[in-house]
């Protein structure tokens, strides 16, 4: 089964989660790196091209994840989670989803500011839907940078919280987002073998 149960995330959700995690941090690092490159650096042109193309693919993945979530209800919060923890987690998750969409969208607005499409590894083009706004590339650039920092900041907070649950609370908060067995498996149900 690919879906999630009431106690843990399903393999598909787990795959989405960690791919998006890797993608976000890799693209963030690449973004910081490529904007510092000297003109004569061999990657001066290719690094931004890869950043854009990979960013588009990551956005696609995030949208697929969102669609999957409509069918696949995540497990309920652990009983050990406090009300404060539940509410903070909800808020952070919501913000993360919003940023995962807004960061690539703002990036698309930079690259397509004068109507140029974005070439995704030669497979397909993402056409410019919004272009020619006054100083679009600058506004979108500022937005892309600050939203990216927010995304990475919140994702780090999210990760630290998961580690806190894992290391200090010894609960399954982190484990249920992996493929490994839970520490405290749910009590056997009638239909269990």
């Amino acid at each position, binding site marked *: 089964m690919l879906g999630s149960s009431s106690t843990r995330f399903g393999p598909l959700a787990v795959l989405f989660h960690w791919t998006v995690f890797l993608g976000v941090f890799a693209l963030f690092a690449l973004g910081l790196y490529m904007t510092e490159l*000297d*003109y*004569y650096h061999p990657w001066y042109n290719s690094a*931004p091209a890869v950043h854009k193309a990979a960013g588009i693919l990551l956005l696609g993945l995030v949208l697929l994840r969102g669609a999957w979530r409509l069918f696949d209800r995540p497990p309920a919060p652990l009983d050990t989670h406090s009300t404060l923890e539940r509410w903070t987690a909800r808020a952070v998750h919501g913000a993360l989803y919003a940023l995962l969409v807004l960061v690539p969208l703002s990036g698309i607005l*930079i*690259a397509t*500011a*004068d109507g*140029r499409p974005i070439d995704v590894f030669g497979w397909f083009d993402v056409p410019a839907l919004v272009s020619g706004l006054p*100083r*679009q*590339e*600058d506004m979108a*650039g500022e937005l892309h940078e600050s939203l990216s920092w927010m995304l990475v900041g919140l994702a780090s907070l999210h990760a630290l919280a998961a580690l806190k649950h894992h290391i200090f609370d010894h609960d399954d908060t982190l484990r249920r987002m992996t493929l490994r067995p839970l520490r405290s498996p749910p009590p056997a149900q009638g239909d269990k073998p």
Partner: protein
Amino acid sequence: MKQRLMPLLLAASLALAAVPARAELEHYVIDTKNAHAFIQFKISHLGYSWVIGRFNTFAGGFSYDPRNPAASKVDVSIDTASIDSNHAERDKHLRSDDFLDVGKYPKASFVSTGYSEGAGGQGQLKGELTLHGVTRPVVIETRMIGHGKDPWGGYRRGFEGTTTLKLKDYGIKKDLGPASQEVELFLSIEGVRQP
């Protein structure tokens, strides 16, 4: 005839000497409203072709005295953020602190300090260019394109000019390679005479 004209000419030349040239100084506003003026730049790309761009927003004026061109004055202010090389992402980079740093230096300006005009309208315009917060003297090789009445009741006069700037001279540290140390400016300025 000649004798009757003499005192008149004398009086006229005395009058001219008393108010030297002033009466002839014509004031022009650069026609940016209808974009009959252009500030373009050109810089080598790797020593192969050129990156050509322009500043879309600027304003200014000049005074010109046909009898005494040396009295002419020019004053131009450029909105640095209006740089446009037909590539939005490159323009974004050119506006950043690697190049023009438009957040800190939103204006570039040119104020003339001297002008000399030779035959055929060729001239040399000297002045101070402030760019990226650095003010330096520059000499612009100019040519008067023409002047005369326009069809809409105005009077126009146009000049073109070129000059070359070293990026380093203006504190632009970003190095684009040996072929791209200098940028060439091309100015095409048409002014409308003010009443």
